[in-house]
């Protein structure tokens, strides 16, 4: 367990020393979301309708941006090799890396989303549902993305391949995440969407670190 926390501490420390990488993804999220109200124009009804989809798609793309660096820098400087040879189980270390990825790329999106949601005339309760959905959904994005990042490790042009591989797998998170907010805006029950999102998250928590570890071992061979 201490190795799990050490990896998180290590990756957070590295993220603090390379702030620009983290901030790039955040600014991307802010700008993409802000472009829509400017492009569509001041029509509250329409904006309210597109808001969940726009916020979620922007969150998917923003979390994609930092994915290819999840393992690539460790792979290039040889520290990934040392991680696999450390006395702690690799699955635990990989889980730590995924957790750190969520803390640096997912959590900031969750915190920014309600502020950006104001541009779309979403009410207080709708914003709360949005935050809840993102809180369940963004860890799912990190977990699924990690599998893709490990599979494309060391592949030339891996960045594009990674998007092609991972974005289709993000579709369930997008449907249920955006669906929860849409349902609330339309005055329907949204708890079912959140439950499904939570179920997907639990499933991914069990299988994604395992699959990522297997893919990393193949990449290092």
């Amino acid at each position: 367990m201490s190795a799990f926390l050490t990896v998180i501490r290590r990756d957070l420390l590295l993220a603090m020393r390379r702030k620009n990488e983290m901030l790039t993804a955040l600014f991307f999220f802010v700008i993409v979301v802000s472009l829509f109200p400017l492009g569509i124009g001041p029509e509250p009804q329409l904006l309210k309708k597109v808001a969940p989809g726009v916020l979620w798609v922007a969150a998917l793309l923003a979390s994609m941006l930092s994915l290819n660096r999840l393992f690539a820098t460790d792979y290039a400087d040889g520290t990934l090799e040392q991680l696999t040879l450390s006395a702690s189980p690799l699955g635990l270390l990989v889980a730590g890396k995924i957790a750190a990825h969520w803390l640096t790329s997912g959590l900031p999106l969750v915190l920014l989303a309600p502020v950006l949601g104001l541009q779309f005339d979403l009410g207080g309760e709708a914003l709360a549902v949005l935050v809840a959905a993102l809180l369940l959904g963004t860890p799912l994005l990190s977990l699924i993305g990690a599998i893709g990042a490990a599979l494309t490790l060391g592949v030339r042009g891996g960045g594009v391949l990674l998007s092609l591989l991972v974005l289709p797998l993000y579709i369930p998170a997008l449907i249920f995440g955006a669906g929860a907010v849409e349902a609330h805006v339309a005055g329907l029950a949204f708890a079912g969407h959140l439950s499904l999102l939570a179920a997907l998250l639990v499933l991914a928590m069990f299988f994604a670190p395992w699959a990522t570890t297997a893919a990393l071992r193949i990449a290092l061979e």
Partner: protein
Amino acid sequence: MLSVANLSCVRGERRLFSGLAFDLAAGEWLHVQGENGAGKTTLLRALVGLSHPDQGEIRWHNQPIGELAEDYRRELLYLGHHGAVKEELTPLENLSLAASLDGRRLDDREALAALHRFGLKGREELPVRFLSAGQKRRVLLARLVTRNAVLWVLDEPFTALDVKAVDMLSALIAEHVSGGGMVILTSHQAMPIAGGKAVKL
């Protein structure tokens, strides 16, 4: 004790070596010799379990290393071609993070002593990015002191080191071997350490 039987490795279409067998007991060291491209690094990576040999078996205390997994890795230290240190972190952070990833607590005094031993006094708090290639190598080598491994697997440990550091590393290896440790290394230089075996690929 490490024993290798009938080992063969294939890289792409080419068979690098086959039928390789040797034993290494406590207090012995092995010099892996061969030309560039002969398969020295491939052999070392197979020995630490990073890659799987095409044929043959590697045993540690009579158990296959694949089954031992973490129990084997705890007794092992592999230093490869890569820097394997984080450029953004300081030498001190690199050492203590590496130690706590292994589940060991390294206090600052111990880490500083290791860095000073490798001539990095005054560079402890400087991000590794600002160090020279030889100094980066020294940061990595400091792990030899801080991690209590029995088996050292070193791939070209003398590259980028100056004469003084080469002497110090040789002394460290000799000390480890005479203390009952094991070392497997590749090097194109002659090694003046007793108790050595050699394998030619």
